[in-house]
């Protein structure tokens, strides 16, 4: 266990349901927020809805962080019930410290074999010392003190968090917190987080909330959806807010309905979206194809989870890339974007909505469970004015051709209510008027047009986030970005410059931009969280990567860590 002056600390709090580990974790994050720190909190659960083993996995730092660290500095266990189920998610080492109640019994082998130092602490007994005492609050007090957090700020936060639960709960919780705060650990405190707080405005939010906000910023005013883990919170965040913005969210009977409802609303002129996860996306593909063929803008935010099939619904994986890129029948050009971190959930979703509206295109935004359900403490995301025109609307002059062959491929769209714009949108191939046609000339003209409008658009620099230099490049996408960024930084700090290309826009492919980004690169390491190397195959399919390529690909549920990437780069670099 490190002594003092750490910039960065990873803490796991585990215990069974009811013990309040998530609540303690959340409060710890809040406290860090008060002090101007950054952080991230993931949750891990057992298969039970209630009462199951759970873990709050935190990383707190004086600098922005976008991924979990390679290991944990501290594991505080309220009990050991089934903890070994996610021992693999809490990597410990001889440098780590375990705080555990001896009354909770022996430390499971899966944990103790890490060689971590152990500091026994009678958490339950301490909690028992006050009326209605709660071990999680004792733990929170302990950690707050240990991290050097401010005592009264912490008290205020606890008061606010439990305000709705009644007086007794608040006062009991505070009493327990005191007990913990008064307890001095044998192991030296990690003072560092008490210093160096940032004064910059910061946000605390989840990726799901970020996508929701991005959608609203982009102009979405209608959503239809069917609940599914891990996308539901996005919908739950959106429902009341859409309503307050004069829009609405409709809970559909299934995903077939939701995608078609969204198409209907967008056809009606209201920017619309849905959110789902793998199984739901699979059900939406036919409808998504209709949006493409009828050129109705829609956005689907797909929050990836472990697959295939029902898979591992509560864990993260980057394995819906294939279905998002290629899941439609026929030649079906569309947009695929991926959020790189929590803040980027906001930007990326807004961008997707704007692009989809401007290009009358169907867009998929890929997020994942890791991003979506983690709470992040980040710098307030900047609000950029996107230079993207709104949906091109038809005007009331002259005979109207819904699918007119324009130069940029975008045909002005009539919205019901426009007096002379009546047309029939169609998923059948059609002539410019919309009249069904199976003529080769119409087919190829419309295929060209639908491709042209996407490929000719200038996406600018946002196709990827690039940083670093040198002749080794890491190419990654979506949420693996966090770990890759940190790996690049660690390498740079160790005097080893590498480039990082983190792709945000996956379709259409940015071939030229990639070529430029790769100039002078002699070695590429592809990083992704997939067993079958979906991203690697995608890169091969679309980009000219004429140099040695290595692939660091592995499935979930464990997140890719910076250390893993660093090791890989150093192996032969």
């Amino acid at each position, binding site marked *: 266990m490190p002594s003092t002056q750490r910039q960065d600390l990873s803490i796991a709090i585990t215990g069974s349901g009811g013990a309040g580990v998530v609540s303690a974790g959340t409060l710890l994050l*809040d406290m860090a927020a008060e002090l101007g720190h950054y952080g991230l909190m993931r949750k891990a659960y057992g298969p039970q809805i209630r009462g199951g083993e759970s873990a709050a996995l935190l990383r707190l730092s004086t600098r922005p962080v976008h991924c979990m660290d390679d290991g944990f500095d501290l594991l505080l266990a309220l009990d050991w019930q089934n903890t070994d189920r996610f021992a693999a998610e809490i990597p410990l080492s001889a440098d780590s410290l375990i705080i555990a109640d001896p009354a909770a019994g022996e430390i499971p082998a899966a944990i103790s074999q890490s060689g971590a130092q152990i500091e026994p602490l009678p958490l339950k007994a301490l909690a028992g010392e006050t009326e209605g005492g709660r071990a999680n609050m004792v733990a929170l007090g302990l950690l707050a003190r240990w991290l050097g957090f401010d005592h009264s700020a912490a008290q205020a936060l606890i008061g606010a968090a439990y305000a709705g639960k009644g007086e007794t709960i608040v006062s009991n919780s505070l009493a327990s917190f005191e007990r913990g705060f008064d307890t001095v650990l044998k192991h030296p405190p990690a003072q560092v987080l008490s210093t160096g707080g940032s004064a910059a405005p910061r946000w605390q939010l989840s990726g799901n909330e970020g996508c929701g906000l991005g959608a609203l910023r982009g102009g979405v005013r209608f959503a*239809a959806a069917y609940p599914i883990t891990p996308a539901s919170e996005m919908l739950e965040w959106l429902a009341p807010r859409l309503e307050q913005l004069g829009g609405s969210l*409709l809970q559909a009977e299934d995903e*077939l309905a939701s995608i078609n409802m969204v198409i*209907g609303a967008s056809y009606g002129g209201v920017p619309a979206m849905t959110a789902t996860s793998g199984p739901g996306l699979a059900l939406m593909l036919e409808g998504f194809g209709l949006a493409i063929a009828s050129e109705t803008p829609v956005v689907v935010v797909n929050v990836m989870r472990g697959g295939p099939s029902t898979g591992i619904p509560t864990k993260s994986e980057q394995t819906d890339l294939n279905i998002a890129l290629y899941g439609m029948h026929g030649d079906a050009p569309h947009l695929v974007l991926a959020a790189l971190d929590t803040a980027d959930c906001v930007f990326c979703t807004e961008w997707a909505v704007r692009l989809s509206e401007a290009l009358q295109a169907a867009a998929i935004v890929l997020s994942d469970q890791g991003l979506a359900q983690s709470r992040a403490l980040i710098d307030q995301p900047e609000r950029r004015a996107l230079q993207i025109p709104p949906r091109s609307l038809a005007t009331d002059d002259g005979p109207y051709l819904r699918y007119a062959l324009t130069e940029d491929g975008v045909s002005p769209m009539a919205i019901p209510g426009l007096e002379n714009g009546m047309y029939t949108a*169609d*998923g059948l191939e059609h002539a410019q008027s919309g009249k069904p046609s199976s003529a080769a000339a119409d087919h190829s003209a419309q295929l060209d047009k639908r491709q042209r409008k996407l490929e000719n658009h200038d996406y600018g620099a946002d196709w990827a986030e690039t940083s670093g230099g040198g002749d080794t490049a890491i190419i990654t996408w979506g949420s693996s970005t966090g770990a890759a960024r940190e790996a690049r930084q660690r390498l740079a700090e160790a005097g080893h410059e590498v480039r990082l290309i983190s792709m945000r826009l996956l379709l259409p492919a940015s071939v030229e931009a990639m070529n430029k980004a790769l100039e002078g690169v002699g070695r590429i390491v592809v990083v992704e969280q997939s067993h079958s190397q979906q991203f690697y195959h995608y890169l091969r399919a679309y980009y000219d990567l004429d140099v040695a390529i290595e692939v660091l690909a592995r499935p979930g549920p464990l997140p890719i860590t910076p250390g893993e990437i660093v090791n890989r780069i150093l192996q032969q670099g």
Partner: protein
Amino acid sequence: MEHTVKVANPIKPKQYKSAIKPVWCPGCGHYAVLNAITKALAQLALANEQVALLSGIGCSSRVPAYTSVYGFHGIHGRALALASGLKAARPELTVLVAGGDGDGLSIGGNHFIHACRRNMDMTYIIMDNEVYGMTKGQASPTTAPDWTKSKLTPHGTGLRPFQPAALALAAGASFIARGFSGDPNGLARMLVAAIEHKGFSVVQALSPCPTFRPEHMDWKHQIRAFEHDSTGDAILAAQRIQADDGQSTGIIYQRELPVWQPITRNSGSIDQFEQEFCV
């Protein structure tokens, strides 16, 4: 119901037809359904641009392109979902949905029962020919069990057909009628009532397919009006539907039930939502 249109220049049904000529087989019942729709729209004097007609896939589902209102020829079985999204987002539009017995009751069955339950204010016309016309004559959910002409079900389906009216009633529709393409004016009148009804109205329009079910050309001799007027009593309606052979026409059931439309208001701003994230 009395409509006040200027008699000197009554709106003509033709005004609701497009320049595209139907590809339906001559003799197909769907022509008359199209006519009934345009007549009803003329009678209601609705502005073309305020009406949307949405459909799925099937011979019947081709109908939107033949009208000059806003149309959407969607995908097979999903027209009601498409329409529900449109209506939720644009409540002021008059929303009509049309499609076949296959589209609406086979692949689209789930959206059908859920649309009935949701009771949004729109009108659904099931152009029922008891067959999949478009794909060359397979049995649909309304096909009699002993119809053996499809190679997919050479012994007949052996299944009791759905009664769309019974399903609609059980699922919660607030207006249920059965019309016949052979009586386009009667059908038009029914459609006017259906469109004027506040809530989800289901009109099953028996519409023979001379190509794959030529025997149904006899329907004109078999179909007759229900003996009773419409009722608002669900139990009575259920009885009448049960007792009937599916060949009586008329408004079967009509009742004022809560119409669903999303609640919406302008009471918030994005800035405000962003504040919630600030630490």
